[in-house]
């Protein structure tokens, strides 16, 4: 059994986001990047399945910058092999639709039984990755999955809908899964483990496939106008607590 986990870097969303001068992309000058939280869940699920079944796990990324470090973290988390698809330094902002054919090509080479990636990335404006890969590879795919178990030629998944309702789905392998939550929360990796991997060479491959066409050239980004939003309470925590208490009293809520 061979599992491929696809990992992407995302801007750290607790930091301030600004739009660059031509309004086409976020200003990436100072922005921190982190593993997409849903890909983090996919990585954890892949390692959990490896521990449960002895499957081999390969982690894949297609990043301009930070891809090597990302994949070294994956090694520290317990994946067996990694592969970095080179996209060129100038391609920092590729959408999932642009990268999908690159992953398709790599996956056709690896021929895994199961592909796990995050259900979405918060900039997947032209489509989420897992369903696109399902269509490109013509493999069955299921998104918004929490819980994956492997059987003989099948995976049993739980797909989540609104209101806490979910369905159990049995899927023939090979299949693509857009993961929402792993069976257990992602584990912590010790810094020492990462340092041990500093010298490891991350294998790279140059893609033969072209980027997928998306509508990035037709998109303008903006910081939303929140002027109609919250009335802001100012002061330190004491002052804010006092104001909240007043508001609740005024409205008869306490």
């Amino acid at each position: 059994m061979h599992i491929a986990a696809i990992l992407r870097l995302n801007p750290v969303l607790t930091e301030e986001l600004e739009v660059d001068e031509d309004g086409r992309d976020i200003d990436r000058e100072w922005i921190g990047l982190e593993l997409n939280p849903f890909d983090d869940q996919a990585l954890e699920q892949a390692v959990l399945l490896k521990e449960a079944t002895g499957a081999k796990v390969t982690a894949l990324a297609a990043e301009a910058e930070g891809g090597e470090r990302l994949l070294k973290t994956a090694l520290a988390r317990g994946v067996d092999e990694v592969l970095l698809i080179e996209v060129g330094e100038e391609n920092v902002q590729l959408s999932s639709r642009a990268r999908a054919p690159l992953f398709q090509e790599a996956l056709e080479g690896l021929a895994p039984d199961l592909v796990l990636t995050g259900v979405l990335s918060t900039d997947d404006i032209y489509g989420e990755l897992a369903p696109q890969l399902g269509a490109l590879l013509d493999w069955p795919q299921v998104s918004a999955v929490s819980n994956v178990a492997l059987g003989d030629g099948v995976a049993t998944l739980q797909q989540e809908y609104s209101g806490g309702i979910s369905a159990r789905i049995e899927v023939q392998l090979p299949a693509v899964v857009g993961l929402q939550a792993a069976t257990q929360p992602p584990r912590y990796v010790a810094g020492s483990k990462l340092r041990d991997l500093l010298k490891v060479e991350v294998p790279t491959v140059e893609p033969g496939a072209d980027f997928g066409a998306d509508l990035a050239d037709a998109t303008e980004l903006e910081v939303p106008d929140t002027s109609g939003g919250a009335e802001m309470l100012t002061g330190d925590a004491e002052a804010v607590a006092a104001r909240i208490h007043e508001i609740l009293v005024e409205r008869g809520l306490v």
Partner: protein
Amino acid sequence: MRCLIFVEHSDGTVSESALELGAMAKSIGAEAVGLICAADPGAVNALAGQLGSFDAVIGVADDSLATYNPDAAARALTAATEAHKPDLVMTSYSAAGVDLAPNVAIRTGRQMVGYVSGLELDGDTLNAMSTVYSGKLVARTGMDLPGIVAVMPGAVKADGLSGGAPAVEMMDVDLSGLRMRVTETLVPENTGVNLADAEKIFCVGRALGGTEKIELAENVAAALGAELAGSRPVIDAGWMPKVRQVGKSGTKVKPRLYLMAGVSGAPEHLEGMANSELIIAINSDEQAPIFGTAHYGAVCDMFELMPALTERLTAGK
């Protein structure tokens, strides 16, 4: 101009989001054609009867479509798109919509835009507004038609039942050799926690950081007489049980008070609580999207605020 709308339904009732999509199609002056996938033609007809604002319905009936099956639904939507060539295919941004819109976009060679909160037609170009980076930015994409959009639930108000039941045309789709089957539907167990009916809710987000500090949150909830709730990461991390999750894949709530701390205000969270009567948000990031929705906000460390607020509430009693 014609829109083909994938109609979600459960337990014999069409989802609110399908009616919202119908209203959105009308708002750009388009005809709304629903695609209903169900177990048999009788079920298709019964569901079509709930789509009074739609112009027509295409029905696909098969045992595999009794509940949502991603493989079968993708084939049906692809076939209907290829046969009817709508200008725009619309899905909700739901679990099904995430499966279908990008998948059918690739299968039919169409472009798609997701996280859509609004549409405007400008000649042959459709301008789609989307919420990206968890609500921190908005995007405007000019899409030449034909295309596909996945629309955020709640983006527009649903239309009532204006007309009679739309005419239904059944369509044959080859669903042989499906590669997945739904074996069971799981409903949440009744645990005594009822967020949907709670009058006051205190919700904490990922910033809680672990169970060590949960007592601070429990104290606020107790002093306030509120139910404690969490955003999805809080539940996924195992800090609170699933019954306490608010949002898209949790419970939808509408309390008189929704107090929240350390929740960023991602669209999937807003989907569950944006209609609360009074929303007060505490977040250390002044750019947190939640400040666009909350009625009152404070840029403040929740770990300082929680004890201070507990003290105030307790002293005020």
